[in-house]
Protein backbone atom coordinates (compact mmCIF):
# COMPACT_ATOMS: atom_id res chain seq x y z
CA UNK A 1 0.00 0.00 0.00
CA UNK A 2 1.32 3.44 -0.65
CA UNK A 3 3.05 5.20 2.19
CA UNK A 4 1.02 8.30 2.97
CA UNK A 5 4.03 10.63 3.27
CA UNK A 6 6.33 9.84 0.40
CA UNK A 7 4.00 7.95 -1.88
CA UNK A 8 6.27 4.91 -1.83
CA UNK A 9 5.02 1.38 -2.00
CA UNK A 10 5.43 -0.38 1.36
CA UNK A 11 5.55 -4.13 1.11
CA UNK A 12 4.65 -6.53 3.90
CA UNK A 13 8.18 -7.35 5.07
CA UNK A 14 9.18 -3.77 5.70
CA UNK A 15 11.29 -3.12 2.63
CA UNK A 16 10.43 -0.13 0.63
CA UNK A 17 10.20 0.30 -3.09
CA UNK A 18 10.70 3.93 -3.58
CA UNK A 19 8.90 5.83 -6.20
CA UNK A 20 11.74 8.31 -6.33
CA UNK A 21 14.44 5.78 -7.13
CA UNK A 22 14.50 6.35 -10.83
CA UNK A 23 15.15 10.05 -10.51
CA UNK A 24 17.93 9.95 -7.86
CA UNK A 25 20.75 7.91 -9.34
CA UNK A 26 24.28 8.56 -8.14
CA UNK A 27 26.32 10.87 -10.23
CA UNK A 28 29.01 8.24 -10.87
CA UNK A 29 26.47 5.59 -11.77
CA UNK A 30 26.78 3.53 -8.56
CA UNK A 31 23.64 1.62 -7.50
CA UNK A 32 21.28 3.76 -5.50
CA UNK A 33 21.67 3.08 -1.77
CA UNK A 34 17.99 3.55 -1.23
CA UNK A 35 17.23 0.40 -3.17
CA UNK A 36 18.42 -1.93 -0.42
CA UNK A 37 16.31 -2.32 2.72
CA UNK A 38 17.25 -0.11 5.68
CA UNK A 39 18.68 -2.78 7.99
CA UNK A 40 20.82 -4.28 5.31
CA UNK A 41 22.08 -0.88 4.33
CA UNK A 42 23.07 0.01 7.85
CA UNK A 43 24.92 -3.21 8.41
CA UNK A 44 27.63 -2.70 5.88
CA UNK A 45 29.09 0.02 3.78
CA UNK A 46 29.50 -0.89 0.19
CA UNK A 47 32.81 -0.21 -1.46
CA UNK A 48 31.37 2.25 -3.90
CA UNK A 49 29.97 4.26 -1.03
CA UNK A 50 33.36 4.24 0.66
CA UNK A 51 35.10 5.52 -2.39
CA UNK A 52 32.64 8.29 -3.01
CA UNK A 53 30.74 8.96 0.17
CA UNK A 54 29.40 12.25 -0.97
CA UNK A 55 28.25 12.05 -4.53
CA UNK A 56 30.24 14.29 -6.76
CA UNK A 57 33.41 14.47 -4.64
CA UNK A 58 36.53 12.33 -4.49
CA UNK A 59 38.01 11.47 -1.07
CA UNK A 60 41.53 10.08 -0.79
CA UNK A 61 41.99 6.82 0.98
CA UNK A 62 44.83 7.01 3.42
CA UNK A 63 45.52 4.43 6.02
CA UNK A 64 47.99 5.35 8.68
CA UNK A 65 48.84 3.37 11.76
CA UNK A 66 48.42 5.36 14.93
CA UNK A 67 49.81 4.19 18.24
CA UNK A 68 47.93 5.30 21.28
CA UNK A 69 48.34 4.58 24.92
CA UNK A 70 45.27 3.39 26.78
CA UNK A 71 46.96 4.35 29.93
CA UNK A 72 47.00 3.06 33.44
CA UNK A 73 44.40 5.62 34.45
CA UNK A 74 41.37 4.88 32.35
CA UNK A 75 37.75 4.60 33.33
CA UNK A 76 37.20 1.36 31.48
CA UNK A 77 40.24 -0.73 32.26
CA UNK A 78 39.50 -2.64 35.37
CA UNK A 79 42.30 -1.38 37.48
CA UNK A 80 45.63 -0.05 36.32
CA UNK A 81 46.15 -1.92 33.09
CA UNK A 82 48.06 -0.19 30.36
CA UNK A 83 47.55 -1.12 26.73
CA UNK A 84 49.62 0.13 23.85
CA UNK A 85 47.29 0.04 20.90
CA UNK A 86 48.28 0.39 17.29
CA UNK A 87 45.21 1.57 15.50
CA UNK A 88 44.18 1.72 11.89
CA UNK A 89 41.17 3.99 12.09
CA UNK A 90 39.09 2.25 14.72
CA UNK A 91 40.55 -1.20 14.16
CA UNK A 92 43.12 -2.46 16.60
CA UNK A 93 46.02 -3.88 14.66
CA UNK A 94 48.32 -4.69 17.52
CA UNK A 95 48.02 -4.63 21.24
CA UNK A 96 50.66 -4.77 23.94
CA UNK A 97 49.60 -5.05 27.55
CA UNK A 98 51.92 -3.52 30.14
CA UNK A 99 51.33 -4.44 33.74
CA UNK A 100 53.05 -3.85 37.02
CA UNK A 101 51.43 -0.61 38.11
CA UNK A 102 50.10 -2.01 41.35
CA UNK A 103 52.92 -4.42 42.07
CA UNK A 104 53.13 -4.76 45.81
CA UNK A 105 55.82 -7.35 46.36
CA UNK A 106 53.42 -9.54 48.30
CA UNK A 107 55.29 -12.74 47.54
CA UNK A 108 58.51 -11.35 48.92
CA UNK A 109 56.81 -9.91 51.98
CA UNK A 110 55.32 -13.31 52.72
CA UNK A 111 58.79 -14.76 53.18
CA UNK A 112 59.26 -12.46 56.13
CA UNK A 113 56.12 -13.38 58.07
CA UNK A 114 55.15 -16.44 60.01
CA UNK A 115 52.66 -18.78 58.35
CA UNK A 116 49.70 -17.36 60.19
CA UNK A 117 50.57 -13.80 59.27
CA UNK A 118 50.83 -14.60 55.58
CA UNK A 119 47.05 -15.01 55.34
CA UNK A 120 46.19 -11.27 55.29
CA UNK A 121 48.94 -10.65 52.71
CA UNK A 122 47.71 -13.33 50.41
CA UNK A 123 44.09 -12.21 50.76
CA UNK A 124 44.89 -8.88 49.22
CA UNK A 125 46.11 -10.24 45.93
CA UNK A 126 42.97 -10.93 43.97
CA UNK A 127 40.97 -8.39 45.87
CA UNK A 128 37.51 -9.43 44.75
CA UNK A 129 37.84 -13.07 45.70
CA UNK A 130 39.58 -12.78 49.02
CA UNK A 131 38.30 -15.99 50.57
CA UNK A 132 39.66 -17.96 47.62
CA UNK A 133 43.15 -16.60 48.02
CA UNK A 134 43.17 -17.51 51.69
CA UNK A 135 41.69 -20.91 50.90
CA UNK A 136 44.38 -21.78 48.35
CA UNK A 137 47.12 -20.86 50.80
CA UNK A 138 45.51 -22.62 53.75
CA UNK A 139 44.97 -25.76 51.69
CA UNK A 140 48.62 -25.78 50.67
CA UNK A 141 49.84 -25.38 54.24
CA UNK A 142 47.40 -28.00 55.49
CA UNK A 143 48.75 -30.41 52.87
CA UNK A 144 52.27 -29.71 54.05
CA UNK A 145 51.29 -30.29 57.65
CA UNK A 146 49.14 -33.31 56.74
CA UNK A 147 46.38 -31.74 58.78
CA UNK A 148 42.71 -32.69 58.66
CA UNK A 149 40.12 -29.95 58.54
CA UNK A 150 36.98 -30.76 60.55
CA UNK A 151 33.79 -31.19 58.47
CA UNK A 152 31.99 -28.21 59.96
CA UNK A 153 34.87 -25.99 58.97
CA UNK A 154 34.81 -27.42 55.47
CA UNK A 155 31.13 -26.66 55.07
CA UNK A 156 31.56 -23.17 56.49
CA UNK A 157 34.40 -22.57 54.06
CA UNK A 158 32.20 -23.69 51.18
CA UNK A 159 29.39 -21.35 52.24
CA UNK A 160 31.69 -18.36 52.48
CA UNK A 161 33.47 -19.16 49.23
CA UNK A 162 30.26 -19.49 47.28
CA UNK A 163 28.92 -16.26 48.75
CA UNK A 164 32.16 -14.63 47.66
CA UNK A 165 31.77 -16.09 44.20
CA UNK A 166 28.34 -14.51 43.89
CA UNK A 167 29.66 -11.19 45.18
CA UNK A 168 32.55 -11.26 42.73
CA UNK A 169 30.29 -12.05 39.77
CA UNK A 170 27.89 -9.31 40.83
CA UNK A 171 30.66 -6.75 40.89
CA UNK A 172 31.86 -7.98 37.52
CA UNK A 173 28.32 -7.63 36.17
CA UNK A 174 27.93 -4.10 37.47
CA UNK A 175 31.24 -2.74 36.26
CA UNK A 176 31.40 -4.46 32.91
CA UNK A 177 27.91 -3.43 31.92
CA UNK A 178 28.86 0.06 33.09
CA UNK A 179 31.74 -0.05 30.62
CA UNK A 180 29.35 -0.97 27.85
CA UNK A 181 27.30 2.08 28.68
CA UNK A 182 24.33 0.79 30.64
CA UNK A 183 24.63 2.61 33.90
CA UNK A 184 21.73 1.17 35.81
CA UNK A 185 23.17 -2.32 36.27
CA UNK A 186 25.81 -1.25 38.74
CA UNK A 187 23.27 0.13 41.19
CA UNK A 188 21.27 -3.08 41.19
CA UNK A 189 24.30 -5.33 41.40
CA UNK A 190 25.81 -3.35 44.26
CA UNK A 191 22.52 -3.54 46.13
CA UNK A 192 22.79 -7.32 46.31
CA UNK A 193 26.48 -7.16 47.02
CA UNK A 194 25.75 -5.04 50.10
CA UNK A 195 23.59 -7.84 51.48
CA UNK A 196 26.40 -10.33 51.00
CA UNK A 197 28.93 -8.00 52.61
CA UNK A 198 26.57 -7.69 55.57
CA UNK A 199 26.67 -11.46 55.89
CA UNK A 200 30.45 -11.42 55.87
CA UNK A 201 30.46 -8.71 58.47
CA UNK A 202 28.16 -10.83 60.59
CA UNK A 203 30.44 -13.84 60.53
CA UNK A 204 33.83 -12.23 60.82
CA UNK A 205 33.50 -8.52 61.45
CA UNK A 206 34.98 -7.18 58.22
CA UNK A 207 33.37 -6.59 54.85
CA UNK A 208 36.46 -7.06 52.73
CA UNK A 209 39.57 -9.07 53.59
CA UNK A 210 38.44 -10.74 56.77
CA UNK A 211 41.05 -13.14 58.09
CA UNK A 212 38.35 -15.71 58.48
CA UNK A 213 40.04 -18.78 56.98
CA UNK A 214 42.88 -20.03 59.12
CA UNK A 215 45.22 -22.94 58.76
CA UNK A 216 43.17 -25.84 60.05
CA UNK A 217 39.69 -24.42 59.75
CA UNK A 218 37.95 -21.12 60.23
CA UNK A 219 38.61 -18.48 62.84
CA UNK A 220 35.26 -18.59 64.62
CA UNK A 221 31.94 -20.27 64.49
CA UNK A 222 29.07 -18.47 62.78
CA UNK A 223 26.82 -16.41 65.10
CA UNK A 224 23.24 -17.56 65.82
CA UNK A 225 21.35 -15.39 63.33
CA UNK A 226 23.65 -16.09 60.40
CA UNK A 227 21.82 -19.06 58.98
CA UNK A 228 18.50 -17.23 59.04
CA UNK A 229 19.95 -14.27 57.20
CA UNK A 230 21.57 -16.46 54.58
CA UNK A 231 18.31 -18.24 53.95
CA UNK A 232 16.58 -14.90 53.58
CA UNK A 233 19.18 -13.94 51.01
CA UNK A 234 18.69 -17.24 49.20
CA UNK A 235 14.97 -16.60 48.84
CA UNK A 236 15.28 -13.13 47.38
CA UNK A 237 18.31 -13.66 45.15
CA UNK A 238 16.82 -15.80 42.33
CA UNK A 239 14.21 -13.24 41.46
CA UNK A 240 16.83 -10.49 41.55
CA UNK A 241 18.86 -12.49 39.06
CA UNK A 242 15.74 -12.74 36.93
CA UNK A 243 15.48 -8.96 37.11
CA UNK A 244 19.03 -8.54 35.85
CA UNK A 245 18.45 -10.90 33.00
CA UNK A 246 15.23 -9.15 32.12
CA UNK A 247 17.16 -5.89 31.91
CA UNK A 248 19.80 -7.26 29.59
CA UNK A 249 18.71 -10.33 27.73
CA UNK A 250 16.47 -8.71 25.19
CA UNK A 251 18.27 -5.43 24.96
CA UNK A 252 19.09 -5.00 21.31
CA UNK A 253 22.25 -2.98 21.84
CA UNK A 254 23.59 -5.43 24.38
CA UNK A 255 22.93 -8.41 22.15
CA UNK A 256 24.53 -6.83 19.14
CA UNK A 257 27.63 -6.00 21.14
CA UNK A 258 27.89 -9.44 22.68
CA UNK A 259 26.74 -12.03 20.19
CA UNK A 260 29.37 -13.34 17.84
CA UNK A 261 32.02 -10.98 19.15
CA UNK A 262 35.54 -12.07 20.07
CA UNK A 263 35.17 -15.79 19.56
CA UNK A 264 38.32 -17.60 20.67
CA UNK A 265 38.66 -21.31 20.10
CA UNK A 266 39.07 -23.82 22.85
CA UNK A 267 42.45 -25.05 21.69
CA UNK A 268 43.85 -21.54 21.74
CA UNK A 269 42.66 -21.00 25.27
CA UNK A 270 44.02 -24.31 26.47
CA UNK A 271 47.36 -23.56 24.91
CA UNK A 272 47.48 -20.28 26.80
CA UNK A 273 46.58 -21.85 30.11
CA UNK A 274 43.23 -20.09 30.47
CA UNK A 275 40.70 -21.59 32.87
CA UNK A 276 37.50 -20.53 34.48
CA UNK A 277 34.39 -19.05 32.88
CA UNK A 278 36.37 -18.09 29.76
CA UNK A 279 37.18 -21.73 29.08
CA UNK A 280 33.74 -22.92 30.06
CA UNK A 281 32.17 -20.51 27.61
CA UNK A 282 33.81 -22.37 24.75
CA UNK A 283 32.15 -25.60 25.82
CA UNK A 284 34.81 -27.26 27.92
CA UNK A 285 33.35 -28.38 31.26
CA UNK A 286 36.54 -28.03 33.25
CA UNK A 287 35.88 -27.04 36.83
CA UNK A 288 38.18 -27.98 39.68
CA UNK A 289 35.26 -28.25 42.05
CA UNK A 290 34.09 -31.28 40.11
CA UNK A 291 37.35 -32.58 38.68
CA UNK A 292 39.45 -32.56 41.84
CA UNK A 293 37.03 -31.87 44.66
CA UNK A 294 38.42 -30.17 47.72
CA UNK A 295 36.81 -29.19 51.02
CA UNK A 296 33.83 -31.55 50.61
CA UNK A 297 32.56 -30.12 47.33
CA UNK A 298 31.80 -33.69 46.34
CA UNK A 299 28.98 -33.77 48.90
CA UNK A 300 27.02 -31.24 46.90
CA UNK A 301 25.05 -31.66 43.74
CA UNK A 302 25.49 -28.84 41.27
CA UNK A 303 25.87 -28.37 37.53
CA UNK A 304 28.61 -26.70 35.55
CA UNK A 305 27.29 -24.20 33.02
CA UNK A 306 29.08 -24.27 29.67
CA UNK A 307 28.65 -22.19 26.59
CA UNK A 308 28.50 -23.25 22.99
CA UNK A 309 30.10 -20.66 20.78
CA UNK A 310 32.63 -18.92 22.97
CA UNK A 311 31.63 -15.33 22.30
CA UNK A 312 30.96 -12.63 24.85
CA UNK A 313 27.33 -13.58 25.21
CA UNK A 314 28.33 -17.07 26.31
CA UNK A 315 30.76 -15.66 28.86
CA UNK A 316 28.02 -13.47 30.28
CA UNK A 317 25.56 -16.36 30.39
CA UNK A 318 28.03 -18.72 32.01
CA UNK A 319 28.64 -16.32 34.86
CA UNK A 320 24.94 -15.66 35.40
CA UNK A 321 24.25 -19.38 35.53
CA UNK A 322 27.18 -19.89 37.90
CA UNK A 323 25.56 -17.50 40.33
CA UNK A 324 22.43 -19.61 40.38
CA UNK A 325 24.44 -22.78 40.92
CA UNK A 326 26.26 -21.13 43.81
CA UNK A 327 22.92 -20.37 45.45
CA UNK A 328 22.06 -24.04 45.11
CA UNK A 329 25.34 -25.08 46.72
CA UNK A 330 24.88 -22.71 49.65
CA UNK A 331 21.43 -24.08 50.28
CA UNK A 332 22.70 -27.63 50.34
CA UNK A 333 25.57 -26.69 52.61
CA UNK A 334 23.26 -24.99 55.07
CA UNK A 335 20.91 -27.94 55.10
CA UNK A 336 23.70 -30.37 55.77
CA UNK A 337 25.88 -28.29 58.09
CA UNK A 338 27.40 -30.73 60.58
CA UNK A 339 28.01 -30.00 64.22
CA UNK A 340 31.47 -30.05 65.63
CA UNK A 341 34.60 -27.97 66.01
CA UNK A 342 35.30 -25.21 63.53
CA UNK A 343 39.05 -25.50 63.67
CA UNK A 344 41.41 -28.36 64.14
CA UNK A 345 42.11 -29.62 67.65
CA UNK A 346 45.83 -29.69 67.13
CA UNK A 347 47.00 -27.01 69.54
CA UNK A 348 50.35 -26.78 67.87
CA UNK A 349 48.68 -25.17 64.87
CA UNK A 350 45.46 -23.56 66.02
CA UNK A 351 45.01 -21.20 68.91
CA UNK A 352 43.33 -22.71 71.97
CA UNK A 353 39.95 -21.26 72.94
CA UNK A 354 40.22 -18.35 75.31
CA UNK A 355 38.44 -19.88 78.24
CA UNK A 356 41.14 -22.49 78.53
CA UNK A 357 43.87 -19.97 79.01
CA UNK A 358 42.75 -19.26 82.54
CA UNK A 359 42.91 -22.86 83.67
CA UNK A 360 45.47 -24.75 81.64
CA UNK A 361 49.18 -24.02 81.61
CA UNK A 362 49.68 -25.98 78.45
CA UNK A 363 47.14 -23.88 76.63
CA UNK A 364 48.95 -20.73 77.69
CA UNK A 365 52.26 -22.07 76.43
CA UNK A 366 50.73 -23.07 73.10
CA UNK A 367 49.13 -19.66 72.76
CA UNK A 368 52.41 -17.95 73.53
CA UNK A 369 54.40 -20.01 71.04
CA UNK A 370 51.86 -19.61 68.30
CA UNK A 371 51.50 -15.88 68.69
CA UNK A 372 55.15 -15.00 69.02
CA UNK A 373 56.89 -17.45 66.75
CA UNK A 374 54.22 -19.41 64.95
CA UNK A 375 54.15 -23.05 64.10
CA UNK A 376 56.99 -24.71 62.23
CA UNK A 377 56.52 -26.73 59.09
CA UNK A 378 58.80 -29.57 58.04
CA UNK A 379 60.69 -29.01 54.80
CA UNK A 380 58.74 -29.71 51.64
CA UNK A 381 57.03 -28.10 48.73
CA UNK A 382 53.42 -28.30 47.68
CA UNK A 383 51.22 -26.88 44.92
CA UNK A 384 47.50 -26.91 45.46
CA UNK A 385 44.81 -25.42 43.30
CA UNK A 386 41.20 -24.36 43.76
CA UNK A 387 38.57 -22.88 41.51
CA UNK A 388 38.16 -19.15 41.97
CA UNK A 389 35.61 -17.02 40.10
CA UNK A 390 38.22 -16.33 37.44
CA UNK A 391 39.79 -19.73 37.01
CA UNK A 392 42.38 -21.94 38.60
CA UNK A 393 43.94 -20.32 41.61
CA UNK A 394 46.97 -22.26 42.71
CA UNK A 395 49.33 -21.77 45.60
CA UNK A 396 52.87 -23.07 45.85
CA UNK A 397 54.48 -23.12 49.27
CA UNK A 398 58.06 -24.08 49.92
CA UNK A 399 58.82 -24.78 53.54
CA UNK A 400 62.30 -25.07 54.95
CA UNK A 401 61.61 -26.17 58.50
CA UNK A 402 61.42 -22.74 60.11
CA UNK A 403 58.35 -20.82 61.14
CA UNK A 404 58.36 -18.64 58.02
CA UNK A 405 57.68 -19.94 54.53
CA UNK A 406 60.64 -19.86 52.19
CA UNK A 407 58.58 -19.17 49.11
CA UNK A 408 54.90 -18.47 48.57
CA UNK A 409 53.74 -18.19 44.99
CA UNK A 410 50.16 -17.75 43.91
CA UNK A 411 49.26 -18.85 40.42
CA UNK A 412 46.77 -16.21 39.61
CA UNK A 413 44.08 -16.93 37.01
CA UNK A 414 43.90 -13.37 35.72
CA UNK A 415 47.61 -13.43 34.84
CA UNK A 416 47.09 -16.29 32.40
CA UNK A 417 43.73 -15.04 31.22
CA UNK A 418 45.29 -11.71 30.26
CA UNK A 419 47.24 -13.40 27.50
CA UNK A 420 44.00 -14.21 25.74
CA UNK A 421 43.22 -10.51 25.44
CA UNK A 422 45.57 -10.39 22.49
CA UNK A 423 43.53 -12.98 20.68
CA UNK A 424 40.31 -11.27 21.49
CA UNK A 425 41.47 -7.76 20.82
CA UNK A 426 43.61 -7.78 17.71
CA UNK A 427 41.59 -7.22 14.63
CA UNK A 428 38.59 -5.82 16.44
CA UNK A 429 37.27 -2.34 16.95
CA UNK A 430 38.05 -0.31 20.04
CA UNK A 431 34.52 -0.66 21.33
CA UNK A 432 34.82 -4.42 21.06
CA UNK A 433 38.13 -4.23 22.87
CA UNK A 434 36.45 -2.49 25.78
CA UNK A 435 33.83 -5.22 25.84
CA UNK A 436 36.61 -7.84 25.73
CA UNK A 437 38.40 -6.35 28.71
CA UNK A 438 35.12 -6.24 30.56
CA UNK A 439 34.19 -9.83 29.80
CA UNK A 440 37.70 -11.06 30.57
CA UNK A 441 37.25 -9.93 34.18
CA UNK A 442 40.86 -9.12 34.99
CA UNK A 443 41.79 -8.19 38.51
CA UNK A 444 45.01 -6.25 38.44
CA UNK A 445 45.82 -6.99 42.04
CA UNK A 446 46.13 -10.62 41.13
CA UNK A 447 48.05 -9.96 37.96
CA UNK A 448 50.52 -7.65 39.61
CA UNK A 449 50.69 -9.18 43.05
Amino acid at each position, binding site marked *: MPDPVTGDEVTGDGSQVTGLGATRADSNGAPNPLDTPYRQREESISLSRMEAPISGTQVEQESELFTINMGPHHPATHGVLRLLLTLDGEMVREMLPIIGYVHTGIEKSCEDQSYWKVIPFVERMDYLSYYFNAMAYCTAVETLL*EEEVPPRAQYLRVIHMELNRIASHLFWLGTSILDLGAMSMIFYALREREIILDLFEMSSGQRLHPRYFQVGGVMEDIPPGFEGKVREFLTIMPERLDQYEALLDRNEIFLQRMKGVAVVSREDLLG*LGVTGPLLRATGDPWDLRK*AAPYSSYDHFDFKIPVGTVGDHYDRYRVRMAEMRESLHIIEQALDGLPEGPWITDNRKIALPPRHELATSMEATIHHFKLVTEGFRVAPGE*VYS*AIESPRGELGC*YVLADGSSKPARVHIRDPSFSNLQSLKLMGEGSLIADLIASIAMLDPILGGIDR
Partner: protein
Amino acid sequence: MPDATGLELIAREVRERVADDAVVGATLAHGQAMLEVRPETIVNVLSYLKHDAAEPFDFLASLHGCDYLPEEPRLGVHYQLLNRVRVERLGVKVRTTVEEPEIPSVVDLYLGANFQKRKVFDFFGVIFTGHPDLRRTHMPEDYEGHPQRRDFPIGGEPVLFTFNEHEGPYRDA
Protein backbone atom coordinates in the same frame (compact mmCIF):
# COMPACT_ATOMS: atom_id res chain seq x y z
CA MET B 1 48.31 -37.35 41.38
CA PRO B 2 50.45 -40.11 39.94
CA ASP B 3 51.32 -42.52 42.68
CA ALA B 4 54.76 -43.92 43.37
CA THR B 5 54.73 -46.53 40.64
CA GLY B 6 53.31 -44.07 38.16
CA LEU B 7 56.05 -41.63 38.94
CA GLU B 8 58.71 -44.30 38.60
CA LEU B 9 57.31 -45.24 35.23
CA ILE B 10 57.34 -41.66 34.05
CA ALA B 11 60.92 -41.19 35.24
CA ARG B 12 62.01 -44.35 33.49
CA GLU B 13 60.30 -43.41 30.25
CA VAL B 14 61.91 -40.00 30.31
CA ARG B 15 65.31 -41.58 30.82
CA GLU B 16 64.74 -43.92 27.92
CA ARG B 17 63.31 -41.43 25.50
CA VAL B 18 65.28 -38.32 26.16
CA ALA B 19 68.65 -39.02 27.69
CA ASP B 20 70.05 -41.28 30.30
CA ASP B 21 71.07 -38.56 32.65
CA ALA B 22 68.12 -36.26 32.08
CA VAL B 23 66.31 -37.08 35.30
CA VAL B 24 68.13 -35.98 38.38
CA GLY B 25 65.50 -36.97 40.91
CA ALA B 26 61.92 -37.97 41.41
CA THR B 27 60.13 -37.30 44.69
CA LEU B 28 56.66 -38.07 45.90
CA ALA B 29 55.78 -36.08 48.98
CA HIS B 30 52.41 -35.17 50.50
CA GLY B 31 50.74 -36.87 47.57
CA GLN B 32 52.42 -34.68 44.99
CA ALA B 33 54.85 -35.87 42.36
CA MET B 34 57.92 -33.83 41.48
CA LEU B 35 60.45 -34.68 38.79
CA GLU B 36 63.74 -32.91 38.66
CA VAL B 37 65.53 -32.73 35.33
CA ARG B 38 68.63 -31.08 34.01
CA PRO B 39 68.19 -27.68 32.40
CA GLU B 40 69.53 -28.56 28.93
CA THR B 41 67.03 -31.34 28.47
CA ILE B 42 63.93 -29.48 29.58
CA VAL B 43 62.56 -28.89 26.09
CA ASN B 44 62.80 -32.55 25.15
CA VAL B 45 61.36 -33.70 28.45
CA LEU B 46 58.37 -31.38 28.25
CA SER B 47 57.70 -32.15 24.64
CA TYR B 48 57.80 -35.84 25.44
CA LEU B 49 55.42 -35.34 28.34
CA LYS B 50 53.10 -33.27 26.21
CA HIS B 51 53.00 -35.31 23.03
CA ASP B 52 54.38 -38.79 23.40
CA ALA B 53 53.67 -39.95 26.90
CA ALA B 54 51.02 -42.57 27.45
CA GLU B 55 48.89 -40.06 29.32
CA PRO B 56 49.96 -36.70 27.96
CA PHE B 57 50.29 -33.71 30.25
CA ASP B 58 49.00 -31.09 27.90
CA PHE B 59 48.12 -28.20 30.19
CA LEU B 60 50.68 -25.94 31.83
CA ALA B 61 49.07 -24.82 35.03
CA SER B 62 51.86 -22.73 36.41
CA LEU B 63 55.44 -21.72 35.76
CA HIS B 64 57.20 -20.14 38.67
CA GLY B 65 60.62 -19.60 40.07
CA CYS B 66 62.10 -20.28 43.43
CA ASP B 67 65.31 -19.39 45.20
CA TYR B 68 66.75 -22.25 47.17
CA LEU B 69 69.38 -20.30 49.01
CA PRO B 70 71.53 -21.61 50.75
CA GLU B 71 71.38 -24.82 48.74
CA GLU B 72 73.22 -24.88 45.45
CA PRO B 73 72.27 -24.67 42.61
CA ARG B 74 70.25 -21.76 43.79
CA LEU B 75 67.62 -20.84 41.28
CA GLY B 76 64.84 -23.22 40.49
CA VAL B 77 62.11 -23.02 37.88
CA HIS B 78 59.02 -25.16 38.36
CA TYR B 79 56.72 -26.25 35.56
CA GLN B 80 53.44 -27.45 36.98
CA LEU B 81 51.77 -29.75 34.45
CA LEU B 82 48.26 -31.07 34.47
CA ASN B 83 46.71 -34.04 32.77
CA ARG B 84 43.09 -33.11 32.32
CA VAL B 85 41.84 -36.54 31.42
CA ARG B 86 43.02 -38.26 34.58
CA VAL B 87 43.31 -35.07 36.66
CA GLU B 88 46.90 -35.68 37.60
CA ARG B 89 49.46 -33.05 38.36
CA LEU B 90 53.16 -33.41 37.81
CA GLY B 91 55.77 -30.88 38.78
CA VAL B 92 58.94 -30.65 36.72
CA LYS B 93 61.78 -28.78 38.34
CA VAL B 94 65.05 -27.49 36.92
CA ARG B 95 67.75 -25.82 38.89
CA THR B 96 70.49 -23.49 37.74
CA THR B 97 73.06 -21.30 39.34
CA VAL B 98 73.10 -17.56 39.55
CA GLU B 99 76.27 -17.33 37.48
CA GLU B 100 74.84 -19.17 34.47
CA PRO B 101 71.10 -18.73 34.65
CA GLU B 102 70.15 -19.91 31.18
CA ILE B 103 67.34 -22.29 30.45
CA PRO B 104 65.91 -23.07 27.01
CA SER B 105 62.43 -21.72 26.53
CA VAL B 106 59.36 -23.86 25.94
CA VAL B 107 57.15 -21.09 24.64
CA ASP B 108 56.51 -23.02 21.42
CA LEU B 109 55.08 -25.92 23.35
CA TYR B 110 52.99 -23.99 25.81
CA LEU B 111 51.98 -20.56 24.60
CA GLY B 112 50.83 -19.50 28.03
CA ALA B 113 54.38 -19.64 29.29
CA ASN B 114 55.17 -16.30 27.70
CA PHE B 115 54.12 -13.92 30.47
CA GLN B 116 55.13 -16.32 33.19
CA LYS B 117 58.68 -16.66 31.92
CA ARG B 118 58.98 -12.92 31.73
CA LYS B 119 57.89 -12.72 35.32
CA VAL B 120 60.49 -15.31 36.39
CA PHE B 121 63.11 -13.31 34.53
CA ASP B 122 61.97 -10.14 36.23
CA PHE B 123 62.10 -11.52 39.73
CA PHE B 124 64.87 -14.09 39.64
CA GLY B 125 67.06 -13.25 36.69
CA VAL B 126 66.66 -16.56 34.90
CA ILE B 127 67.31 -16.00 31.21
CA PHE B 128 65.20 -18.09 28.88
CA THR B 129 67.05 -18.56 25.62
CA GLY B 130 64.80 -18.53 22.62
CA HIS B 131 62.08 -16.45 24.23
CA PRO B 132 60.71 -13.96 21.71
CA ASP B 133 60.42 -10.96 24.01
CA LEU B 134 62.16 -11.22 27.35
CA ARG B 135 61.40 -7.98 29.15
CA ARG B 136 60.51 -7.23 32.70
CA THR B 137 56.84 -7.42 33.52
CA HIS B 138 56.27 -5.93 36.94
CA MET B 139 59.24 -3.79 37.84
CA PRO B 140 60.12 -0.79 35.66
CA GLU B 141 62.15 -1.89 32.68
CA ASP B 142 65.35 -0.21 33.77
CA TYR B 143 65.26 -1.58 37.30
CA GLU B 144 68.46 -3.11 38.55
CA GLY B 145 68.35 -6.23 40.56
CA HIS B 146 66.03 -9.17 40.81
CA PRO B 147 63.72 -8.61 43.76
CA GLN B 148 62.61 -12.07 44.76
CA ARG B 149 66.03 -13.53 45.21
CA ARG B 150 66.60 -14.20 48.84
CA ASP B 151 69.63 -11.98 49.14
CA PHE B 152 67.77 -8.95 47.80
CA PRO B 153 66.81 -6.76 50.76
CA ILE B 154 63.16 -6.43 51.44
CA GLY B 155 63.40 -2.67 51.42
CA GLY B 156 60.78 -0.40 52.81
CA GLU B 157 61.01 2.19 55.53
CA PRO B 158 61.87 1.66 59.18
CA VAL B 159 59.05 2.20 61.61
CA LEU B 160 59.94 5.27 63.64
CA PHE B 161 59.70 4.94 67.39
CA THR B 162 61.03 7.37 69.95
CA PHE B 163 64.42 5.72 70.07
CA ASN B 164 65.09 6.06 66.35
CA GLU B 165 62.92 8.96 65.32
CA HIS B 166 65.88 11.13 64.48
CA GLU B 167 67.07 8.76 61.76
CA GLY B 168 66.27 9.32 58.14
CA PRO B 169 63.38 7.46 56.56
CA TYR B 170 65.45 5.19 54.36
CA ARG B 171 66.56 1.85 55.67
CA ASP B 172 70.05 0.66 54.88
CA ALA B 173 70.44 -2.54 52.94
